[in-house]
């Protein structure tokens, strides 16, 4: 019952956050200098097309009415049509989003598979050469922007060694191997920052738990090193891993925009950028709203995972 109340509180706050975020997006687009219909149709739009736009987007109505109409439609999955190609925004997002989700999923996978062992090894052999190399590589990864690393990878793997394609995208259903070949470099690039943060945070969390009393007790009662490291220390540091992934999601979204631009992947991030350059406001509104919703949803999922890992959070009843 405490859990149900906790989830309810968490849901309420998520809805509030989303409401404020949607208000911000709406206000942003409608605070544009000049007439919104002209902003939507372009300065050279004819009076007829301005009237048509006002009709279609309901621009003649008061702003609060417009806002609630927009939200009402958005909740039903209707995000109006793109100014560029007249396609429904929701459908375009539905086509582009899976590509980015695959990219982000692979990136997180890389970060976990490479970052968790690196953090554990660095912590258990603190001060050794391995620790210094790992920490150094992590700091290096943090100091290179995604796009720069992407360009370096293209230079090395595509231009110099000709082992991987430089850019582009192939659908997984069309050619699974080609899809993975095209996704490998972008996913490594996108995962690099998360990997570095993960390694550093996990290293210090592991150092802290390895120095605590329960580890000494576990060692004293004769448990093996591996058992102590993995069953006791790592398990208690897992909350750090979840926190890092949760905190890094925003950066992952930003990173996806840049990575898709560098590798010319037609995903959600590229859609966002293209819509800005085309001043395609319905698409901008939809894209920003969906990314805010996604961010809030994943953050909630992270909180739920927290309570599964650490029952103390649930018991205290605080978020």
């Amino acid at each position, binding site marked *: 019952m405490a859990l149900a109340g906790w989830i309810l509180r968490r849901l309420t*706050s998520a809805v*509030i*956050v*989303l409401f*404020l*975020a949607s208000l*911000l*997006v709406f206000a*942003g*687009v409608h*605070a*544009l200098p000049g007439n919104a219909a002209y902003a939507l149709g372009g300065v050279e739009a004819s009076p007829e097309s301005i009237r048509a736009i006002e009709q279609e987007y309901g621009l003649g109505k008061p702003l609060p009415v417009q806002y609630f109409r927009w939200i009402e439609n958005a909740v039903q999955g209707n995000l109006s049509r793109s100014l560029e190609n007249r396609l429904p925004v929701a459908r375009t997002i539905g086509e582009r989003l899976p590509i980015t989700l695959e990219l982000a999923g692979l990136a997180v996978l890389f970060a976990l598979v490479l970052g968790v062992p690196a953090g554990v090894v660095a912590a258990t052999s603190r*001060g050794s050469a391995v620790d210094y190399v790992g920490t150094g590589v992590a*700091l*290096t990864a*943090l*100091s*290179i*922007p*995604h*796009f*720069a690393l992407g*360009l*370096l990878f*293209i*230079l090395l793997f595509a*231009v110099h060694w000709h082992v991987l394609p430089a850019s582009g995208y192939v659908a997984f259903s069309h050619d699974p191997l080609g899809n993975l070949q095209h996704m490998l470099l972008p996913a490594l690039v996108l995962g690099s920052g998360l990997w570095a943060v993960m390694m550093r945070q996990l290293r210090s969390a592991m150092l802290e738990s390895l120095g605590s009393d329960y580890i000494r007790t576990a060692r004293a009662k004769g448990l093996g090193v591996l058992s102590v490291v993995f069953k006791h220390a790592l398990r208690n540091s897992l909350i750090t891993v979840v926190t890092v992934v949760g905190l890094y*999601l*925003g*950066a992952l*979204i*930003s990173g996806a*925009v*840049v990575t898709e*631009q560098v590798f010319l992947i037609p995903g959600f991030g590229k859609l*966002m*950028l293209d819509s*800005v*350059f085309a*001043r395609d*406001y319905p698409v*901008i509104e939809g894209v*920003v709203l969906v*990314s*805010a919703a996604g*961010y*809030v949803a994943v953050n909630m999922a992270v909180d739920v995972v927290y309570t599964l890992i650490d029952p103390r959070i649930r018991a205290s009843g605080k978020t």
Partner: protein
Amino acid sequence: MSATDIAGSTIAPEPTRSRRLAFLRRPVILASGTVVAAFIVVAALAPAIAPYSPSATDFTAVLAPPSGRHLLGTDDLGRDVLSRLIYGARASQEAGVLATAIALAVAVPVGLVAGFFRGRLDATIARLIDVMLAFPSLVLAVALSAIFGPSLTNATLALGIAAIPGLVRVARGETLVLREQTFVKAAIVSATPTHTILRRHVLPNLASTLIVQATVTIPTAIIGESMLSFLGLGVQAPTPSWGSMLSAAEPYIASAPRLILLPIAAIFAVTLSYNLLGDALRDALDPRLRL
């Protein structure tokens, strides 16, 4: 880490001036501090140092390799790469420092008030921070430039706003701890005005944490600026920036890789130095890590 451990145990507990400045002697701080200082000087004195105007084109020397005339060669429009790198430091510098200043100016008072008064105000601020975090910095920058048009100023503003939530959390957290300290409680019971307590007792004790945070926020903003300029949302042509130099060089990645490698090296050297400096300063200034 180990160096501070030793310093903490061997040097007298009395904090003398020489001990306070001892951290400056450590090699990592010295090296990274030198790079950061050089970066600041180069950005400030760009017109005096640069051999050419960053936008002067020479169509007789397009994509020229490094030579005595052009130390780092020229780009696709025959512009001197070294001069563009030097002027590019200005955009990075402006974005890094101004964005951090904007973020600090907002985040410190907000964090102080939230942490000190707690209660409903604190809860409201926490909610607002959640909303801000729901907008990844780049999405925010994209939205701002969609509304106001792309420029370095708007990019800097977006990066500054994006840095606010993290800094508020730090300032608030530290204030929560300081609030429970005896010297603050003593000030409260002796009827010191609240604004005096915040200014004279809490803020000075926040300073070292904030300095460390600022050193880490600057490189984040520098990376952000290069990224936005790369995407065309930051510095606009013909003004040079390391990010826009990279996007212009993309078509020549095979024929003139130096156009890609040089700006990346510049970004890397500066951000790595700031990050190292931040790490080292934290080790040196954070009393909890000295235990």
